């Protein structure tokens, strides 16, 4: 469900569907490579469509480093649950975990590309959000 490496910004993919989250992660791995810590989570706790805060927290934890973590989400609950997860983090980590306003698949690939070059969390977020610019 996750694996990590280096001091690059971590990427978390949150979708209502575990298949979408896993598929987006596959695309990141194949297109960008393994230089970026990457984790995904999707579905509610019963295995249905939805998102859950515990799963998001676990994914953040899996890719955490002081370089920070960029979260890519799909619709509504994925965003609000991700924001809730960020609020539940230790205070010193909260500012280093951001939810990107970007499409989940494209944003994940772009964010990971940016991260793989050693870019800062702000640069990773900005690059992913260029899709809506």
């Amino acid at each position, binding site marked *: 469900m996750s694996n990590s490496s280096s001091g690059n910004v971590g990427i978390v993919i949150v979708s209502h569907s575990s298949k979408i989250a896993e598929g987006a992660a596959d695309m990141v791995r194949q*297109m*960008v490579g393994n230089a970026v810590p990457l984790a995904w989570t999707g579905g509610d706790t019963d295995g249905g469509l939805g998102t859950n805060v515990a799963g998001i927290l676990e994914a953040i934890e899996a890719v955490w480093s002081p370089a920070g973590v960029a979260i890519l989400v799909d619709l509504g609950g994925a965003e609000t649950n991700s924001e809730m997860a960020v609020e539940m983090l230790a205070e010193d980590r909260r500012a280093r975990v951001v939810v990107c306003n970007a499409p989940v698949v494209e944003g994940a*690939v772009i964010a990971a*590309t940016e991260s793989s*070059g*050693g*870019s800062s969390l702000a640069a990773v977020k900005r*690059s992913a959000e*260029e*899709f809506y610019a």
Partner: protein
Amino acid sequence: MHDVNASRAANAFAPLTASAVLVNAVGLHARPSVKLTQCAKGFAAKIEFALAPDGPWTDAKSPVKVMRVKAPQGATLHFRVAGPDGKAALAAVLALVHDGFGEA
């Protein structure tokens, strides 16, 4: 010169230019775009490219901007590179294009 800031460093170096034809079947689509930006990010030099020798120029380190160019197979990519490692950077991006980004 001790300033490692890329843009200021770039100003101190005359831009190098060269071009290469996109040989891979699908052109500069998503995967090659990612490879190009990853390659470009490995250098301090400012690296830009265009479909015409006089621009408009696209920052080769921006994955979104590179993908938006949608350069097709057969297009000529004109590179403009400036920076302390400009020569190596230009050689690297040209090799990547010549090599079809490792695709067919």
